[in-house]
């Protein structure tokens, strides 16, 4: 299986930079400008309605870590990483089926389950690499600007995105078990990603609708920059992702490979 993972990672080298660089540069910029906007920001935040602050996880923004959380890690990074995750598994499975690559791979003595597992594992590594590149650039931004970002807090914030994004990779595998069209897989799971985000947002805005958050993985995302990683949520969400991927692998095994 290692050979399959390595081959897929080789194909995704560009993707690590294509996603890691912009996310990292944006985060670095956010961190770098914090010292110059700190005062004005604090004043503006004080005027925001409490519900809005609650919904978007906007605290006092009295330090750069909270600013990074509010600007990048509560919306842009998780949504981008979730989309990248589903796009990666879709290109590794349905994309490979469409291009004929899967026919060739499955002419070799390797089971479909292994192909799925390697695709999921390669996506997990790719996500980790993208988040690591983003973290490294963010740290550089802080160092260059003297913003004083806590590396531990930033590490927790970026690392916390990983299991969340993996859930969408796993959902991509589940959908691949029903359709081998890349557009269908990517489009439907991207829709679920947005729907889950909105459901979580609505639930936080209106306590009466809190129940809708139970259907969203974002409910368990938290704010790791401020609170640190919740091991239970981190492990639970990762386990859900692995479980969904296993279900998807079973469905994929029963699926006809047509082109």
């Amino acid at each position, binding site marked *: 299986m290692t050979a399959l993972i390595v081959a897929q990672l080789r194909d995704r080298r560009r993707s690590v930079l294509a996603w890691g660089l912009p996310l990292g540069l944006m985060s670095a910029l956010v961190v770098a400008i914090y010292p110059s906007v700190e005062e004005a920001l604090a004043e503006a935040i004080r005027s925001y309605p409490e519900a809005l602050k609650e919904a978007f996880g906007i605290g006092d923004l009295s330090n750069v870590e909270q600013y990074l959380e509010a600007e990048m890690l509560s919306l842009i990074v998780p949504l981008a990483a979730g989309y990248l995750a589903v796009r990666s598994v879709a290109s590794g499975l349905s994309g490979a089926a469409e291009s004929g690559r899967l*026919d060739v*791979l*499955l*002419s*070799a*003595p390797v089971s479909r389950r292994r192909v799925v597992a390697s695709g999921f594992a390669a996506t997990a590594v790719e996500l980790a690499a993208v988040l690591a590149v983003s973290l490294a650039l963010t740290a550089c931004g802080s160092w260059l600007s003297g913003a004083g970002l806590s590396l531990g807090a930033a590490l927790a914030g970026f690392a916390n995105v990983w299991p969340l994004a993996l859930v969408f990779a796993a959902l991509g595998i589940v959908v691949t078990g029903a359709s081998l069209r890349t557009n269908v897989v990517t489009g439907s799971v991207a829709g679920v990603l947005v729907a889950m985000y909105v459901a979580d947002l609505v639930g936080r805005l209106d306590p009466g609708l809190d129940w809708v958050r139970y259907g969203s993985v974002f409910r368990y995302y938290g704010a790791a920059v401020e609170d640190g990683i919740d091991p239970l949520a981190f492990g639970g969400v990762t386990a859900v992702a692995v479980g969904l991927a296993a279900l998807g692998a079973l469905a994929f095994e029963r699926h*006809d490979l047509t082109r």
Partner: protein
Amino acid sequence: MATIETEDLTKFYGAKRGIEDVTLSVEPGEVFGFLGPNGAGKTTTIRTMLDLLHPSRGSARLFGLDSRRESVAIRRRIGNLPGDFGFGKRASGREALSLLARLRGIEGGGRAERLAERFHADLDRPLGELSRGNRQKVGLILALFHNPELLVLDEPTSGLDPLMQEEFLALVGEERERGCTVFVSSHELDEVERVCDRVGIIRDGRLVAVEGVAELLGKAQRRVSVEFAEPVDAAELRSLPGVTELETADGRVVFRASGDLDAIVKALARYRVTDVEIAHPTLEEVFLTYYEERL
């Protein structure tokens, strides 16, 4: 034990029939041609045999192993060239080869370099930059590099230039000598005739016939054109066994003939013949023969 054995192999795509009740057997060391027009069910049969599609009913056994439950063990022993071979656009043939060699536990590339030299294949350029024919050469190398016991080739010469087609046909002969069983699908009668021991004909998803190549061609209708130096009795020729659609014009008689030509040749020899042409049967003519037999 047969290398390939299918029994009532059937595949429906929803309500649409792919193949139905395909029962055939391919013996070890045999080169078996699977002949049919586009859309007849050749690829569906191959993909169902190789567990890429799941049969709606019936079964396939390769090397005595069940194609569904033991597909990994089967694939250890086969080489497969899928129809319209592809491996993504960015990967080169060498990268694909390296991955497949590792999956098969083969050190180096087996005989890939020798094959690449023989087929003038470029293993280093990204496959997306290669023409269809050059991509097909890479596909052939990937199917052959590990000396499989069974080669499954779906339209292997499509896109190859005539010289490479010749090289391919020679290679199939060598594979047979090595003891390899070859299952090759094609819609080119010439190609099948030259390398295959037996031929299965599929049309509209059903196996119409399985015959030795000589029997197949012997039964097929051929178009015969004979020019005579003297008047002939057209009615006599028309009454000969196997003669149909006979027409005469300007001292030339044109007709279709099927089966044993002995009686026809002897009847023609009673006249002074100045020219004879017996056209090779086309695939459609072969099919026509078998359809008429079944009606």
